[in-house]
């Protein structure tokens, strides 16, 4: 059979280059230039998949990206495997492996096909209705539904391919390289516009490139010949970049577009090594010309989905471009003239056409007369009412249409065929236009939506703008482009066209049948098995908006976004509801136009580039010393340093003990640092912190709390006065960028009169904190010249100093409650100073500790961590930090909010300490706190914010927020857990050394 399906006439197929490929485990041959679809058709294969809901056999329907049925899995069982690929878009290569995806166990025998017999009980909304109740049934159905509802398999291994992103800026972007796109690109490039022309196919010229008909001519040449010369000419233009195999996925506002450029998918696997597979182009164009053409409409009649039923234009493309006949006994079924072009292409190659069924009573065009002359029987005013054949169409029955087209009359005639080409006219491809925010209008004459209001500097030309005749396309393209680019047309002085087609059409959205609608299966959405009956049912059940009908029936919800059938759905809705087209809205096409792979979306942002991180200058030392790391914002911070197979708990206990018993050392470089200068610096700090700053002496440090204007705690940190008009502020690690942004905001917008300058210096300094009773001895060894006496260098003060002649800033401040120093030095000396401290601390068992131990030590002291113990709903009063809120200052950010009716409530959540009845029991952070477990529902009083086992206190400690907690000291509360209730007592949040004896001890 397959011998006489290939016609050796196409110049697009290289017949000297035979390609073998596997489909459903069987080996076939095709030629270079074939798509998987054309190669399968050449082998006589139409049945390629099963429909989603009813598992009906489905064949190749189209020849392009609008394909709803021929959805396959590419590269079986490998890391490259890819589901939901359209066979019509895959160019074959040696070794290609593909399989049908929506069938089990095989495409020819599919268990899910039973759904087809069950279809009377599988109406629209079936899934919604059935699985709502009873819930226990779902578990029984689920296994079989999951098994049979195949939407492909995702790869289980890492993708071996390389992807990348590229930015392109151009004056003019032309999307689509058909006749109008080619003409537009030439006019733009020749007039000095930097132009980019993209097309999703591997060749230029669109469907006109294989238009060899005598019935359409340009300047007295056959269309394809004229176009070839044009392509030849533009390929030499310097100003023009051409990208084929490039499909525009998204058209966003301000002419920002995303396109996928396919670079290696057509190559044999062994030629793809080290090459970029796909590139995501991020295009910013000053002007966009959309020339995406149009998509042929199917016709909606009973059983219009059998393998062998195809778009008429696809039948034409397969024979003209690939030299493949889709059938040996063809019938064409149309409501317009374009199917006669298909007929002529078949006639020229001697391929049999059994009949043409035309909805129209009157047909009056040169091309139809020519077809008739070839003794092809044309049934005028007829429609197909049914089709036959399970795995491939073998028969149709036709009847005469009534005058109004609403019913069928007369006798039924049966005709044989193995391929039925259908044409319901053309739908402009306005997907990208609507994505960009464009508004459509409906043209009554031929029932199409066309671009109306452009939201940006763009234009649609050719058939995507509703121009279907050759003469119209060329004439309107020329005048539109001239106006759009504001140029004189010197490129195309006279273009004369001849066309044998006329534009008459008899549009009937749902063709009538001799059966009642309930007995028909007229598919509107092939991929999701939505029928005309389903749409009517949805309307009967009260759905009106197209967006609701769409979701209820799943019309247009497949991977093809209903490119073929959406118009018919709208048409059937308006006919049934008796409203105007578009009155119920048009569905929104969303990006991407065709699916994108994840690889293309992420580009090079994989592996270590997936989420970049920041390292401190001392990072390498932490790595070398076995640190585990924690992500804090973008930072990698040393978390703890396990020794000899210690787990985290053991390491943290050891580190915490060492820091209080002798000495600990912490890399605090990630703390945010903001350099503040200017004559109003003190006044500025007064306004942004809750406490007073005017009287802070030079060389002194102070802890500050920053609020939002709503009174809630925003950030905290120590700020040091370095000079009369010079401060250095520290912020939390995670808050650094936001704090700087907030300060800049106030300076620029509310207080521009203040003379203050801010610079972020976080990365400029390495910060090393040495703490513990032996910290003084260690620092004095590292900086022998510095007087560390309490008189000269008391707590909360600062000194400029030098280490090996390198300037550094030393602060005596403490986040642990121990005597401690913070050394700030130029970042690139951080690691060597750290090592110096380690060396100096050797005799004192200096112990490096990470963030976990830092958190534990500060919790012992009841110091808060903004973002852990606070969550933007706590005021300083809620935190029992009244002491830091100045009563004297007239104003600061958030002050007024501290006495709003809501913030002065006594029963707000307030920070408290929590001690467990069993001192060995450590609470879970986030656990709920309640008072009464018998009450139903149990009232939640708050939650645990920080919780640790303290090796220094030898008991479990926790911080939490509790409603009215301030007045609950000593009260018993309960932490209900999954399998037990834990009794706790509300305590003072300062667990250790409340008097500050450790901090002030004479060392």
């Amino acid at each position, binding site marked *: 059979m397959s011998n006489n399906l290939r016609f050796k006439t196409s110049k697009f197929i290289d017949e000297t280059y035979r390609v073998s490929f596997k489909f459903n485990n069987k080996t076939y041959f095709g030629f270079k230039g074939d798509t998987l679809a054309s190669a399968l058709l050449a082998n006589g294969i139409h049945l390629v998949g099963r429909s989603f809901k009813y598992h009906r056999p489905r064949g190749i329907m189209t020849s392009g990206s609008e394909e709803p049925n021929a959805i396959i899995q590419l590269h079986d069982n490998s890391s490259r495997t890819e589901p939901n690929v359209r066979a019509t878009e895959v160019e074959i290569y040696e070794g290609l492996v593909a399989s049908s995806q929506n069938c089990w166990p095989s495409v020819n025998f599919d268990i899910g096909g039973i759904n087809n017999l069950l279809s009377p009980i599988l109406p629209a909304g079936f899934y919604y209705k059935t699985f709502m109740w009873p819930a226990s049934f779902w578990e029984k159905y689920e296994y079989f539904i999951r098994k049979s509802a195949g939407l492909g398999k995702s790869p289980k291994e890492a993708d071996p391919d390389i992807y990348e992103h590229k930015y392109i800026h151009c004056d003019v972007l032309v999307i689509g390289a058909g006749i109008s796109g080619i003409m537009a690109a030439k006019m733009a490039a020749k007039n000095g516009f930097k132009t980019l022309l993209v097309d999703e196919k591997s060749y230029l010229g669109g469907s006109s490139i294989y238009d060899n008909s005598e019935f359409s001519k340009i300047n007295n040449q056959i269309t394809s010949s004229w176009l070839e010369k044009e392509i030849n000419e533009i390929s030499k233009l310097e100003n023009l970049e051409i990208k084929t195999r490039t499909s525009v996925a998204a058209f*966003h506002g*301000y002419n920002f577009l995303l396109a996928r450029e396919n670079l290696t998918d057509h190559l044999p696997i062994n030629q793809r090594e080290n090459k970029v597979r796909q590139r995501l182009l991020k295009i910013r164009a000053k002007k966009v010309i959309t020339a995406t053409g149009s998509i042929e409409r199917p016709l909606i009649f009973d059983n219009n989905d059998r393998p062998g039923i195809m778009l008429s234009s696809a039948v034409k493309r397969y024979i003209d471009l690939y030299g493949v006949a889709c059938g040996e006994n063809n019938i064409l079924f149309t409501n317009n003239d374009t199917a006669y072009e298909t007929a002529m292409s078949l006639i020229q190659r001697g391929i049999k056409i059994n009949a043409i069924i035309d909805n129209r009573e009157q047909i009056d065009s040169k091309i139809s007369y020519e077809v008739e002359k070839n003794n092809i029987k044309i049934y005028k005013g007829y429609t197909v009412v049914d089709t036959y054949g399970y795995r491939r169409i073998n028969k149709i029955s036709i009847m005469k249409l009534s005058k109004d087209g609403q019913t069928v009359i007369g006798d039924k005639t049966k005709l044989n065929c193995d391929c039925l080409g259908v044409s319901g006219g053309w739908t402009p491809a306005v997907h990208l236009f609507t994505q960009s925010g464009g508004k459509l209008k409906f043209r009554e004459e031929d029932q199409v939506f066309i671009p109306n209001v452009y*939201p940006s500097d763009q234009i649609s030309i050719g058939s995507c703008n509703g121009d279907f005749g050759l003469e119209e396309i060329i004439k309107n393209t020329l005048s539109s482009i001239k106006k759009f680019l504001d140029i004189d047309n010197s490129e195309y002085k006279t273009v004369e066209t001849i066309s044998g087609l006329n534009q008459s059409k008899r549009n009937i959205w749902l063709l009538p049948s001799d059966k009642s609608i309930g007995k028909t299966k007229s598919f509107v959405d092939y991929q999701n098995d939505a029928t005309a009956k389903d749409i009517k049912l949805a309307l009967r059940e009260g759905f009106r908006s197209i967006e609701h009908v769409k979701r209820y029936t799943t019309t247009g919800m497949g991977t093809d976004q209903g490119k073929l059938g959406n118009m018919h759905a709208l048409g059937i809705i308006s006919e049934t509801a008796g409203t105007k087209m578009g009155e119920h809205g048009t569905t929104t096409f969303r990006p991407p136009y065709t699916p994108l792979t994840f690889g293309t979306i992420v580009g090079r942002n994989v592996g270590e580039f997936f989420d970049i991180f920041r390292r401190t200058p001392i990072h390498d030392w932490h790595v070398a010393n076995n640190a585990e790391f924690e992500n804090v914002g973008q930072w990698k911070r040393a978390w703890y340093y396990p020794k000899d197979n210690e787990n985290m708990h053991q390491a943290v206990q050891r580190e915490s003990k060492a820091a209080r018993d002798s000495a600990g050392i912490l890399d605090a470089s990630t703390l945010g640092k903001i350099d503040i200068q200017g004559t109003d610096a003190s006044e500025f700090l007064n306004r942004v912190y809750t406490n007073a700053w005017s009287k802070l002496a030079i060389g002194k440090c102070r802890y500050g709390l920053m609020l939002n204007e709503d009174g809630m705690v925003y950030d905290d940190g120590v700020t040091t006065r370095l000079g009369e008009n010079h401060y250095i502020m520290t912020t939390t690690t995670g808050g650094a960028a936001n704090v700087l942004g907030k300060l800049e905001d106030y300076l620029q917008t509310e207080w521009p009169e203040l003379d203050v300058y801010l610079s972020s210096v976080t990365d400029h300094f390495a910060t090393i904190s040495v703490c513990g009773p032996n910290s003084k001895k260690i620092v004095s060894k590292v900086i022998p010249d510095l007087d560390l006496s309490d008189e000269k260098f008391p707590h909360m003060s600062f000194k400029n100093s030098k280490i090996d002649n390198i300037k550094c800033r030393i602060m005596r401040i403490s986040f642990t409650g121990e005597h401690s120093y913070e050394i700030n030095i130029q970042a690139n000396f951080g690691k060597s100073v750290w090592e110096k401290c380690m060396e100096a601390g050797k005799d004192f068992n200096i112990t490096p500790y990470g963030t976990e131990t830092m958190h534990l030590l500060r919790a012992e002291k009841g110091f808060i961590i903004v973002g852990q113990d606070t969550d933007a709903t706590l005021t300083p009063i809620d935190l029992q930090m009244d002491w830091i809120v100045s009563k004297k200052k007239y*104003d600061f950010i958030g002050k007024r909010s501290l006495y709003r009716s809501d913030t002065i409530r006594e029963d707000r959540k307030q920070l408290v300490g929590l001690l467990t009845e069993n001192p060995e029991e450590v609470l879970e952070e986030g656990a709920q706190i309640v008072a009464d477990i018998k009450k139903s529902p149990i009232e939640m009083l708050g939650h645990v914010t920080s919780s640790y086992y303290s090796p220094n206190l030898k008991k479990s400690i926790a911080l939490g927020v509790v409603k009215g907690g301030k007045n609950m000291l000593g009260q018993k509360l309960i932490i209900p857990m999954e399998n037990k209730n834990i009794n706790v007592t509300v305590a003072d949040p300062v667990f250790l050394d409340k008097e500050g004896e450790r901090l002030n001890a004479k060392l």
Partner: protein
Amino acid sequence: MFLINCPFCGEREQSEFKAGGEAHIVRPKQPTELSDDEWAEYLFMRKNIKGVQFERWNHVHGCRKWFNMVRDTSNDQIKAVYKMGEKPPVK
């Protein structure tokens, strides 16, 4: 993604900017003298209109300057950009 004409740097990608809410809401000079309702008006009440809106924007990954923008929120058309402290050039 829109293109924003920063009054200090010129046209840049939207990804370089941060939106900062409604513009021309002045922080009261004497908050302590306001009633709860008056303070709440300043603190919480925003118009959030569909249509022409006056907004604050910050060129956060550029010059870090705050400026004002007039944008039609229904179609993202930017009608004007102008510096802080300046009067809106359009109504």
